[in-house]
C-alpha cells in the first residue's frame, strides 16, 4: 500500500502531469467559453439560442404535436413577433409585417446596436426561426431511404457475401429505426435546432473529442512514465532486487491506471459543469436525441443523430461519458502493454503514436471484399475519431448496433493477451 501511494505521489508531482492537465483544462474551457461568446456571425449567437429554446420549452413543454404545445407556442411566438415589430419601429421608425423585410433592414443596423439590443434581436429571431424549423422537421427522416442508399453503396462498391449482407442488414435496421422514430413520437420532440444551436456537434464532436484525446494522451504518458520509472532513472537493479521485486510493476500499473481514469474525471468535472452552466439544458434532458431537430449541416457533417435505440439527451450524455471512460481504460491498458515490452518511454511513446495513427488509417485501406474493414474499424482510435456519432448512424463500417460491445470485447482481449505475455516475459527477463 505504501509503495502504491509512493507511485501515486510520483504521478501527481510529475511536472508533465500538472502542466498538461492545466494546459488541457485551459484549452477546454477556452473552447467552451468561445462557443458561448462565439458569434458565428452577427446574426447568430448559439448560447442565446440554446437558452432561448430551453426557456421556450419551459413554457410549452416538449411535445411539438400536442395541442397544448401549439397553443402555448403560438402565444410565445406572437409576443416575440410583436417585440420584433416594436424593436423594428424603434430602430428604423418604420412599420412592417414582413419578417424578411424587417430582418434585412435591421441587418444593416446591427453594428450600431448595443449588446442588449443585439440580444433582443437574437432572442426574437430564435423564436421566429423555431416556427419555421418545427414545421419543416419531417424532411430529415421522411426523405431518407437507408435501404436504397445501402443498395446503391453495395452496387457501387461491388460488394458480395458478408459485406453485402452486412450493409443490407444495417441499412434495414436503420430504416426500421427511422420508422420507429416517426411512430413513437421521437419525431415530435423539441430539441435544440442543430443549425441554430450546434449543441450536439459542439458537445460531442468537438468537446468530447478533445476530452477523450487529452485524457488518452495524459493517461498514456502517465502509464509509461510510471511503469518505466526505474528503468529511466537507472534504479531498476535496486528496485527489482528489493523485497517487493518485480511485483512493483503491479503497484505501478495500479497507480497509473487509477490516475489514468482520474484524468477524464478531473477534466469532465470542470469542463462539463462549465458548459452546462452556460448552455442551459434543464428542460430538454428528457427528449430524444434522435429528434429530427438535432441535425447539423455544418461541423461534423450532414448526419442526423439516429441512435440505435431511443435515448434521451441525458442518457446519451451518460452513455458518452461511460464510453469515454471505457476507451480511456483501453488506452491505458495498451500503454501498459507497450511500456512493459519496450521499457523505454521515448521508444514506447513513438511506437504508441505510430500504432494509433496506423490503426486509424488501416480500415479504410483494406478491401471491402473482406470483412476486415469492419473488424479493424472496431478499434478505440477510430472510435475516438468518430466521436459525436457514437451509438448512432455513422460511416458504413461503424454503423451497427453492437459496435461498442464488439470494440471493447476485441480490444479488451487484445490488451489482455499482450499484457499477459508482456508480464510473463518481464517476470523472467534479465534486467
Amino acid at each position, binding site marked *: 500500500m*505504501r509503495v502504491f501511494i509512493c507511485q501515486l505521489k510520483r504521478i501527481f508531482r510529475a511536472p508533465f502531469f500538472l502542466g498538461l492537465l492545466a494546459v488541457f483544462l485551459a484549452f477546454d474551457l477556452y473552447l467552451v467559453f468561445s462557443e458561448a461568446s462565439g458569434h458565428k456571425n452577427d446574426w447568430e449567437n448559439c448560447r442565446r439560442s440554446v437558452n432561448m429554446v430551453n426557456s421556450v420549452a419551459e413554457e410549452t413543454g416538449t411535445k411539438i404535436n400536442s395541442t397544448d404545445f401549439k397553443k402555448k407556442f403560438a402565444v410565445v411566438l406572437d409576443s416575440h413577433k410583436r417585440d420584433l415589430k416594436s424593436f423594428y419601429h424603434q430602430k428604423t421608425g418604420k412599420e412592417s409585417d414582413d419578417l424578411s423585410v424587417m430582418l434585412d433592414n435591421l441587418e444593416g443596423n446591427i453594428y450600431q446596436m448595443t449588446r442588449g439590443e443585439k440580444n433582443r434581436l437574437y432572442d426574437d429571431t430564435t423564436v421566429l426561426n423555431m416556427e419555421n424549423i418545427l414545421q419543416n422537421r419531417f424532411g430529415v427522416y421522411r426523405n431518407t431511404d437507408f435501404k436504397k442508399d445501402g443498395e446503391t453503396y453495395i452496387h457501387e462498391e461491388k460488394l458480395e457475401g458478408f459485406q453485402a449482407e452486412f450493409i443490407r442488414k444495417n441499412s434495414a435496421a436503420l430504416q426500421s429505426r427511422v420508422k420507429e422514430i416517426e411512430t413513437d413520437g421521437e419525431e415530435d420532440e423539441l430539441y435544440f435546432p442543430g443549425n441554430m444551436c450546434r449543441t450536439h456537434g459542439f458537445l460531442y464532436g468537438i468537446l468530447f473529442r478533445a476530452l477523450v484525446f487529452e485524457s488518452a494522451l495524459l493517461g498514456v504518458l502517465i502509464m509509461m512514465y510510471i511503469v518505466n520509472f526505474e528503468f529511466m*532513472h*537507472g534504479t531498476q*537493479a535496486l528496485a527489482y532486487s*528489493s*523485497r*517487493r521485486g518485480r*511485483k512493483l510493476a503491479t503497484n505501478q500499473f495500479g497507480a497509473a491506471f487509477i490516475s489514468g481514469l482520474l484524468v477524464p474525471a478531473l477534466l469532465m468535472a470542470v469542463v462539463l459543469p462549465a458548459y452546462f452552466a452556460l448552455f442551459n439544458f434543464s428542460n430538454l434532458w428528457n427528449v430524444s436525441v434522435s429528434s429530427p431537430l438535432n441535425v447539423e449541416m455544418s461541423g461534423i457533417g450532414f448526419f442526423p443523430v439516429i441512435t440505435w435505440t431511443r435515448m434521451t439527451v441525458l442518457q446519451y450524455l451518460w452513455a458518452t461519458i461511460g464510453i469515454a471512460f471505457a476507451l480511456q481504460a483501453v488506452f491505458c491498458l495498451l500503454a501498459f502493454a507497450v511500456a512493459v515490452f519496450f521499457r523505454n518511454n521515448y521508444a514506447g511513446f513513438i511506437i504508441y503514436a505510430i500504432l494509433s495513427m496506423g490503426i486509424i488509417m488501416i480500415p479504410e485501406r483494406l478491401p471491402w471484399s473482406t470483412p476486415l474493414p469492419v473488424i479493424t474499424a472496431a478499434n478505440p482510435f477510430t472510435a475516438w475519431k468518430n466521436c459525436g456519432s457514437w451509438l448512432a448512424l455513422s460511416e458504413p463500417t461503424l454503423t451497427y448496433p453492437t459496435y461498442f460491445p464488439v470494440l471493447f470485447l476485441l480490444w479488451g482481449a487484445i490488451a489482455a493477451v499482450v499484457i499477459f505475455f508482456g508480464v510473463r516475459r518481464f517476470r523472467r527477463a*534479465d534486467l
Partner: protein
Amino acid sequence: MLTVQNVTKRFGSFTALEDINLEFGKGVYGLLAPNGAGKTTLMKMIVTLLFPTKGRILCDGKEILSMGESYREKIGYLPQEFGYYRNDSPRQYLRYLGALKGLERRAAEVRIDGLLEKVGLADVKDKKMKKFSGGMVQRVGIAQALLGNPEILVLDEPTAGLDPKERARFRNLISEFSKDRTVILSTHIVSDIESVANRIVMLKDHSVYCDTDCSSLCGMMGGKVFECSVPQKDADSFEMSHLVISRREETGQTHFRFAQDGEKGLPPQAKPVQPDLEDVFLYIYRED
C-alpha cells in the same frame, strides 16, 4: 548458506559463466577477477536480476527463485552502476527503497539516519542528490544496501570512486557488519580484499579458478616470487624473459619483482620474497 549449483549463464551465444559451483557461508567473500570475467553477472544472478541459463542457486537448500519475497528480504545489493532520482535527497531516496524493502516506516527512519551517519553523509542528508559527487552517491548506495539489515550482502565494486579515507571507513563498516552474515564483494582492487575478506573466489575462463582463504592462496605462490636488481641496460631484455609483477627504477639499476616456477634460469642475485595477493592476481591472470 547460499549455494550456487552448476550455474551457467549465456547471453545469446556468448557464455559469460560456465558451470559455476560455489558455497557462501558466514563471512566476507572477495570475488576477484579481471574486467569482463563475470563478477557482475554472478552477483546479479544471486540477487535475482538475472536468471541462470542452467543450474540453480539455493538459499538454505531452497531454490531462490521459488522463495520470492522471503529470499529477497534477506539480501542487500549494491549494483556496480545505479541511478537515483535527481531531485530526491538521500533521505527520501532511502525512504522509498525502504518501502520497497518492506521496512516498517518508523524503524526505517531511525535506521536511515544511523546509516547516513555511518557513511559520513549525515550533514547532507536533506540535500538533493543531483548535487552529489560520484563518491557521495556511491556511499548512499552502500547505505541503501545495508538498509534492510540483510543476512546476505552483495556489493559490486563497493569502493569504486571512494577516496582512501572513505575506503578505510568502508572496510571498518563491513568488518563490523559482517559478523554472522554473508558478505560477497567484488573488486579488482586487490588491497580492498586483502584486509577484509576471509575467503577469495577467483574466476578465470568463465569458471571458478579458486575458492580459498587469503593465506593459502598466497601460500600457493610460496617460493615462486622473487626480487632482484638488474643493470638498467639489461632491464628490457629481463622484462621480456620473465613474468614481471612490478618494476621500479633506481639509480643505475632497475628493481624487479617477478614470479617464476622453479629455480631454472633464476638470476643469481634474486632473492625469494613473501608473496602477496597482488602477486597471485597478476600471476594467475598473466597473458600466456
